[in-house]
């Protein structure tokens, strides 16, 4: 694993160096270079321009021109914010742009962009249609190689401009990194207010970039651990009342809320199976906590663990064949993996300290967790057999990693000593770590799947991806 990372680091540096050399030669020769330098496709089958594993020494310089038309400048701002937060792009200050009248009908004036160091140029326009909706068209060019990287047109109502900006950011991110995007997503979390002893907690949802926060509960219950289904309209969470606790299933679109069931014992730690047909959770009976799974269609309950230890925080593998959970059956909490029917339980974590709150990556390759020891708490990842453990973040207190849909970022809550709790984000290299787009007080973030499937006909009808040919 370490070796692989090292190799990809070297590869990334190699790409960057080649790209700059190319840029130089393109300028000298005043013509495009056709030399193929892209790394092999990682996921989408597209060649990639930015290696995001490790070793991106300098973020990719992208020029995001204000779109023409309604909300065009705001669209560019939202886009730039998304790309910057990803850690792999550095949008260039628009004040330095030389060419300011870009039109979708034309290619950019390449030298005017290479002159300001733009490694890519994004521009677009918002055009009204007869049906009252808008066309949001855009093109992304490589000014050094003088070719188009991608283009597309989204059509939507004018009010949806912010979402469209996120979708465009996803297209750009996917084209440049070879990874699926993460921006047309939402975060469900527990909004916190009040004092330590009189804390008000409300279920809330917000766009990934921190806009449009909406409270979904009134604060009469303490809310814990909301999680998305594979359908981003459906969530499950736990609530504590004065004298009861309950797992809810909640449809965000219809507002329908139902209890998972009344159990003999306290139920908590719910998490959907990848297809949304089952919920794994824990039930406490006689002080003992075990993992159960309920089929939502038949309401059939199955018990998966039965030892006297605390077995909780179940999380399915993306193929639904296995479940990772934490157990203190041998003393300290460790991570275990079992088959989805409860068979084959075996410990995977190897280090000292307490391992809790595991979350299986949507890519299937890694398990994120919270680890405590030495008076600190941290967020880390390990391979599914427990090897290759590395910590991505550590502080006074942090917990509960939730994966971005592309398995490249984790969001978690971090509390300062004696202070507030906020949502933080870290990428898999541990290099990009920052507060999430939502900066208010909150905990227990869960990252939604992409709200829509990514378009698969990028570039069609707008001129093909000429950089990859």
């Amino acid at each position: 694993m370490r070796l692989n990372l090292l190799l990809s680091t070297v590869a990334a540096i190699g790409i960057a160096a080649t790209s700059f050399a190319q840029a130089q030669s393109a300028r000298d020769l005043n013509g495009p270079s056709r030399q193929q330098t892209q790394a092999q496709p990682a996921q989408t089958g597209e060649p990639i321009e930015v290696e995001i594993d490790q070793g991106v020494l300098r973020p990719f310089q992208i020029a995001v021109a204000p779109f023409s038309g309604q909300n065009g400048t705001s669209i560019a701002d939202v886009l730039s914010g998304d790309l910057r937060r990803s850690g792999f792009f550095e949008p260039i200050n628009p004040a330095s742009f030389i060419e300011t009248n870009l039109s979708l009908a034309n290619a950019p004036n390449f030298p005017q962009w290479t002159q300001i160091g733009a490694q890519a140029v994004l521009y677009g326009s918002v055009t009204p249609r007869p049906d009252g909706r808008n066309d949001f068209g855009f093109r992304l060019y490589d000014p050094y190689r003088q070719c188009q990287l991608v283009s597309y047109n989204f059509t939507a109502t004018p009010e949806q401009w912010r979402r469209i900006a996120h979708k465009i950011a996803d297209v750009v991110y996917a084209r440049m990194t070879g990874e699926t995007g993460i921006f047309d997503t939402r975060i469900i979390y527990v909004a916190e207010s009040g004092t330590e002893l009189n804390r008000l907690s409300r279920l809330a949802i917000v766009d990934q970039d921190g806009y449009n926060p909406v409270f979904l509960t009134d604060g009469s219950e303490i809310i814990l651990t909301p999680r998305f289904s594979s359908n981003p309209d459906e969530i499950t969470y736990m609530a504590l009342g004065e004298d009861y606790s309950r797992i809810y299933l909640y449809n965000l679109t219809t507002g329908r809320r139902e209890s998972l069931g009344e159990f003999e014992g306290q139920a908590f730690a719910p998490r959907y199976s990848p297809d949304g047909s089952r919920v794994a959770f824990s039930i406490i009976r006689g002080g003992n906590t075990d993992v159960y799974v309920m089929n939502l269609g038949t309401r059939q309950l199955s018990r998966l663990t039965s030892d006297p230890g605390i077995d909780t925080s179940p999380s399915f593998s993306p193929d639904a064949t296995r479940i990772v959970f934490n157990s203190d059956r041998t003393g300290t909490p460790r991570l275990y993996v079992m088959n989805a029917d409860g068979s084959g339980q075996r410990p995977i974590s190897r280090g000292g300290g307490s391992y809790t709150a595991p979350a299986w990556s949507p890519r299937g390759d890694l398990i994120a967790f919270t680890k405590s020891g030495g008076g600190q708490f941290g967020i880390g990842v390990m391979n599914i057999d427990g090897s290759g453990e590395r910590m991505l973040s550590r502080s006074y207190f942090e917990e509960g990693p939730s994966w971005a849909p592309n398995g490249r970022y984790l969001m978690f809550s971090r509390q300062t000593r004696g202070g507030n709790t906020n949502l933080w984000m870290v990428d898999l290299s541990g290099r990009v770590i920052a507060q999430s787009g939502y900066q208010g007080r909150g905990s227990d973030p869960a990252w939604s799947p992409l709200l829509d499937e990514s378009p698969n006909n990028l570039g069609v009808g707008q001129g093909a991806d000429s950089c990859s040919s």
Partner: protein
Amino acid sequence: MMTASNMTRFALVGLVALSMAACAPRRPVTGVADGTGGPAIDNPAYPGPGNGGIDGGNIGSGAPGSEQDFVVNVGDRIYFDLDSYSVSPEAYPRLDAQAAWLARYPQITVRIEGNADERGTREYNLALGARRAESIRNYLIERGVSAGRIDTISFGKERPIAEGATEDSWARNRNGHTAIVSGAQ
């Protein structure tokens, strides 16, 4: 006798008083600085002392069999060591007293609420709080309280009683609380 729970209570009152003092608005200085006198008397931030009479009296210790009787004279909370859920010997007298009190008032039902400090992850702490509640429940059952009168719930780290990131407040937040559900006077 000053019980631990009473100490907590007084400590909290002290904290509230302190924080109120800290939040008291500062006197505006403009009027003083230019020699025109103190703050205007109609400033709503400076309420007068009020005209109502003030009466006093002893705080009751609760009618026998009341919730107040239980809280004040028996004690409704015991504390646990770090990462531990076994009832410590220091807690025996109070739980013995709880059992005796519950024997005296057999119509009363209770709910044992297990609590954890903030130095743990949310779900694990729920499970830990449940173990603490169960330990207390088992102790009371051993002392003759019928199982059917004792419900349990874990609040994990969600219901702290002491604020501040100190060993002392964490210790107080690792507790089991015996709450009267029904049957009290």
